[in-house]
């Protein structure tokens, strides 16, 4: 920990410190007011309590006044405490399949990283395919995307960052000034962001969304169905991303031999491929095939956890090795979010909210779908993508029911745009990691990111309108 001294005037520091207790006191007052105000017509007492809890959690999530996971735990406490759901029902919801799928995915990704397989694949691809400045950028971009198909985009960004940073240093690129330096880190960040929405594995938000869908409607989305629906969007965005990056920051280097020296040295230190890398690679491959072909029969979480057991049976990892890769905060957060979503739905609060707030938006499914996806993209730039899902999805599913939109399609409208955060470092860790290199400024990111956000929204809605009907999907039930 580095010490930092706040040299602002003391009165200002005290005033800012006082804001926190004032904030929590105001939140308490709001909560009590929402609980005890006369119930509006059509809203049950449980629904009113669910809305009060939701409002408090909503404010805590967007303000980040508490860690996201702690807000979720708070929701878990409040829901049974105020009788919205029974204790038994509340805690049982934490055992949702999505939570265990996320846990399994974390452990599998941890095993891949711990074995060194992911680093080897990354280095080899960059070295083999990055022969020219343009191809090196492309290989980093596509590699980041491809790896994010299989593991958390956050983990991919963290894993590739030191390699890309070494390349930029090796090429003597000047931070903040070099276009090529910017391109290296944009390709890392945007590759992760775009790749992260391609499958269930790029982030825990899609499993979370499916968990909420399942709890509220009993429906689900299969691994393969999701990929078929989203993959063309990902391909289009990869093209768009590369074009926008190189348009804003034209390549300004001609020689990247030094980058290959860096990669060559790194590859040498890895030595030959180990049994553990092979074995973990095979387990991962089998797992993905099982998700695609057997997901419906055995469940995604069941397959993920079986693969985890296999890793330990084959002694490919020890608990100590993968413990650090398991983000328990995310798991707690998602468990709590699913409970809150279910509370809103089962208490009738979600449908009441839809009728009274969103009911007047439009009767057109296309317009509602477009507006919700736009709202999601806008919100995810400023807040956690998981929080966006928790806040919007239960209400949106209620709206879907009212407009006869397929709730699964509505889940896509929230889950996919929630991952498309291009504009700010706080939008997603991949962006934050890229900005931390000092090659990209926040202004650079916002400039290119805004165009990407608009393009993503257009591409997503065009795909929903014209591509999904071709594969038997549609807005309507």
């Amino acid at each position: 920990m580095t010490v930092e001294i706040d040299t602002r005037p003391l009165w200002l520091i005290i005033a800012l410190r006082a804001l926190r207790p004032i904030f929590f006191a105001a939140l308490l007052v709001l909560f009590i007011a929402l609980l005890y105000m006369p119930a509006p017509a059509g809203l049950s007492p449980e629904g009113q309590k669910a809305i009060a809890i939701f409002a408090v959690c909503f404010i805590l999530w967007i303000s980040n006044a508490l860690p996201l996971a702690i807000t979720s735990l708070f929701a878990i406490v409040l829901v049974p405490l105020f009788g919205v759901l029974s204790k038994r029902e509340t805690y049982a919801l934490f055992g949702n399949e999505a939570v265990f799928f996320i846990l399994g995915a974390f452990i599998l990704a941890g095993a891949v990283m711990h074995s060194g397989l992911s680093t080897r694949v990354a280095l080899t691809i960059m070295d083999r395919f990055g022969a020219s400045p343009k191809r090196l950028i492309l290989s980093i971009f596509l590699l980041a995307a491809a790896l994010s198909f299989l593991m958390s985009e956050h983990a991919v960004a963290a894993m590739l960052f030191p390699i890309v940073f070494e390349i930029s240093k090796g090429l003597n690129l000047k931070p903040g000034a070099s276009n090529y330096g910017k391109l290296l880190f944009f390709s890392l960040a945007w590759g992760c962001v775009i790749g992260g929405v391609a499958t269930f594995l790029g982030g825990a938000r899609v499993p979370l969304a499916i968990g909420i869908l399942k709890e509220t409607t009993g429906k689900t989305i299969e691994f393969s169905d999701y990929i078929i629906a989203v993959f063309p969007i990902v391909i289009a965005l990869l093209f768009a991303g590369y074009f926008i990056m190189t348009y804003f920051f034209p390549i300004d280097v001609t020689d990247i031999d030094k980058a290959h020296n860096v990669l060559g040295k790194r590859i040498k230190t890895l030595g030959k491929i180990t049994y553990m890398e092979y074995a973990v690679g095979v387990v991962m491959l089998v797992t993905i095939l099982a998700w695609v072909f057997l997901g419906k029969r055995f469940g995604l979480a069941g397959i993920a956890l079986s693969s985890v057991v296999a890793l330990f049976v084959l002694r490919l990892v020890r608990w100590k090795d993968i413990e650090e890769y398991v983000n328990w905060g995310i798991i707690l957060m998602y468990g709590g979010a699913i409970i809150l979503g279910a509370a809103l739905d089962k208490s009738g609060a979600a449908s009441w909210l839809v009728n009274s707030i969103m009911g007047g938006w439009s009767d057109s499914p296309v317009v509602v779908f477009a507006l919700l996806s736009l709202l999601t993209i806008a919100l995810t730039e400023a807040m956690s993508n998981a929080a966006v899902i928790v806040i919007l999805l239960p209400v949106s599913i209620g709206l879907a029911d009212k407009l006869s939109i397929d709730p699964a399609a509505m889940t896509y409208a929230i889950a996919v745009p929630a991952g498309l955060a291009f504009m700010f470092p706080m939008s997603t860790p991949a962006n934050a990691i890229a900005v931390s290199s000092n090659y990209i400024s926040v202004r650079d990111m916002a400039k290119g990111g805004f165009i990407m956000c608009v393009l993503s929204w257009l591409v997503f809605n065009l795909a929903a309108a014209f591509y999904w009907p071709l594969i038997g999907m549609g807005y309507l039930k």
Partner: protein
Amino acid sequence: MKKKSYLDNPATLKIDLMLRGLRIADPLVKAWACGATGIDIMLPGRTIANIPCSEGFTAASPYAIRKRGERYAITDGTGEVEVSLVPRPKFYDGKTSTGVSFSKIAQVHGSLLVITPSPACEFFNAKVECRYCAGNFDRTGKEDAVYTVEDVVETVGAAIAELGSPVVYLSIGFSRDPSGGMEFLRPYLQAIKRHYNCLTAVEALPPKDNHWIDETYAMGADSALYNVEIYDEELFKIICPGRATLIGRKRYLDALEYAAKIFPSGTVSSHLIVGLEPPGSTCQGIDFLTGIGVVPVLPIYRPTTNKALRIDPLTTEIIIPVYKHLYKAVKTKGINLNWVRDLSMVTTPVELKGLVEGAGKNVSLVDTFYGTRLGKKAAWGMSTLRRKLRVKGTHGQSGH
């Protein structure tokens, strides 16, 4: 011409006494001084002074201390003023549990409890020690001469039990450590802060990087001193060759400027020794230091026999305008005067009130309050609260 008397003004009397010393004839007072180079005497107006009494030059001093019944008085031959002897702290007679005498570890100087945990100063090893330095520091820096944290904490405990809330003043000689000695002092400072509710001051060397100044404040120092000693650039190089070559005058001034932004007003100080450079140069130093929010502390150069530096000390008549200038500069710049106070070895700005016309002769209510036990506790509380508000650690970014 009539001989000038300083007896009627405690501030000028303190300056003159510190410059010329005191003759002691009374065997009881001699015993009281216990062979120390100076004796702590409380002058009128609760002005405490450490007055030389054993150096050769004191034999020519016009001042002598006389017993008047149960009391004492200082006379200059033309008149006399009643004073009292500052009792020798009782804890000096005690020892730590490892057998080290408390008086070896800590000395009381007015409101300060001065502790130098290690006597090492590498200026001596490099033969670039300050020319006026009386050699308080050990040249070898043997490890067995370093007091342990436990011994120091025990000593501070004994002193606090007797004296109430002295300001614990930790000092260190030069080392090549980039922290300016703070890495060495850290465990002492933190242990003292952990055990006792007391204010602390640190006399160290300017660190290489300013982040060490942040660290110094964060680890619990309530006051910092980086003593430039001489403001004149050329004299600084000659008199303080180690400071000039191994640290540099610019670094001293930069570090002081930065520290004044981090520490509370009036708690960052620097010594400017009066008498080792022309008074005009000292005044320039005062102006510069007060301009960056630093309190200049002006010790008076007293020649010692064991050093080769042959500079005749200035006279009181010449020195007094320098002190007046100090008071006016500190007041003009609005620097808090309550930290640097009640020091026996130097004349502090608070004591100079009586010297400057229109400054108000009386000690204010605030001055009196901060001198009391309650005032010291309040100062500690305010200082601790300020640190809690100002210091923050930087953490890694949380995930999304």
